[in-house]
């Protein structure tokens, strides 16, 4: 697995637990559905009668294999996703790129950042992961520009660094503006 590294990702690495977490979130729906189907089919074969005894075991085995395959494929995909996940804080802007098959890349200048927040969902709590969200004034940037699956230290470090850079940027621009706008002062 070749991980696309950037300076920022070296400094604030993604946790490998993210792969497991994402595998669970992406397959849990299917698994529940399959288990329900399994029960229904068990009930169905039972009620048909005694001449289909063997059937039940075969169906159950099929379901188990199917669930296993779903998890395996999902795991491999998430590993790939994890490997190509790219985020970098440049001199002037933040770049987040994800998606192995259909890549999406967003670039936001520091000056345009409207808010930064860190959150955890239920599974994040269990795994001890944090998501750092940042967005500009557009709705789609909020959806795209989040860096999720960081350990506590990395998340806090990243947040601090972002806040610092943004603040520096704004104050720098302000001082420049003061001198240009009000030459008397």
């Amino acid at each position, binding site marked *: 697995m070749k991980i696309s590294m950037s300076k920022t990702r070296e400094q604030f690495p993604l946790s490998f637990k993210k792969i497991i977490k994402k595998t669970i979130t992406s397959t849990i729906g299917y698994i529940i559905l399959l288990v329900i189907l399994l029960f229904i089919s068990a009930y169905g074969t039972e009620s048909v009668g005694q001449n289909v005894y063997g059937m039940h075991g075969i169906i159950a085995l099929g379901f188990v294999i199917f669930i296993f395959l779903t998890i395996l494929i999902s795991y491999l995909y998430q590993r790939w996703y994890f490997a190509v996940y790219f985020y970098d804080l440049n001199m002037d802007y933040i770049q987040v790129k994800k998606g192995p098959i*259909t890549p999406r890349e967003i670039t936001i*200048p520091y000056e345009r950042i409207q808010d930064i927040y860190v959150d955890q969902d239920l599974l994040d709590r269990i795994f001890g992961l944090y998501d750092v969200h940042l967005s500009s004034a557009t709705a*789609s940037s909020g959806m795209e520009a989040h860096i999720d699956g960081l350990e506590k230290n990395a998340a806090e470090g990243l947040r601090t660094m972002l806040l610092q850079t943004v603040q520096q940027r704004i104050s720098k621009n302000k001082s420049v503006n003061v001198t240009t706008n009000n030459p008397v002062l």
Partner: protein
Amino acid sequence: MDNSVTEKDYPVENLWILKSVTGSIVAFIIAIILLVIFGFNQELRQIDFYLFIIIIFSFFHLVIAILRKSTFHYSIDKGFLTLRQGILSKQQRHIPYGVIQNLFVKQDILDRIFGLASLTIENASQGSSYIPQQKMSPFQLSMTRYRGSQIESVGFSGNRVNIPGLKKKNAKVLKRIILQRMKENPLEDNRSGL
């Protein structure tokens, strides 16, 4: 105006036309095949009718895609990003570099196959034609559903400008040029929410 970058430098590739009508082309081919199989059978007149509709529709789709591409112009001028579009009703838009919020470079699955990429530029305005936010239904599991349903056409609407069908290399260069312009032309009272 000497150093302005226009669509002549980084054009929307002709492949984009092909890409945007791929669905229609597939429908067209299927319709033709079905027509060849069933077409001359007198009993199936109604199917013929639908097939003809499909063929006409996909043909129009192609024509519109060609027109849309040929009437879309962008130019990265000194102070503004100037855009022109419209087949019958023409629209022009000028975006100062200072108000651009973020840039996207995206590739969907067909883009990957054709080696294309689309560049999306967003600002915070709602544009001339306000598109209400799509409602999130409680049954939607994640944001990915919404992301997938975003329209991917040429030109501008709402707060986004979409330049699709660029070569991947060109999309990157264009992104860099615009970022450079944004850096050179900051807003006067630069305020972030923080």
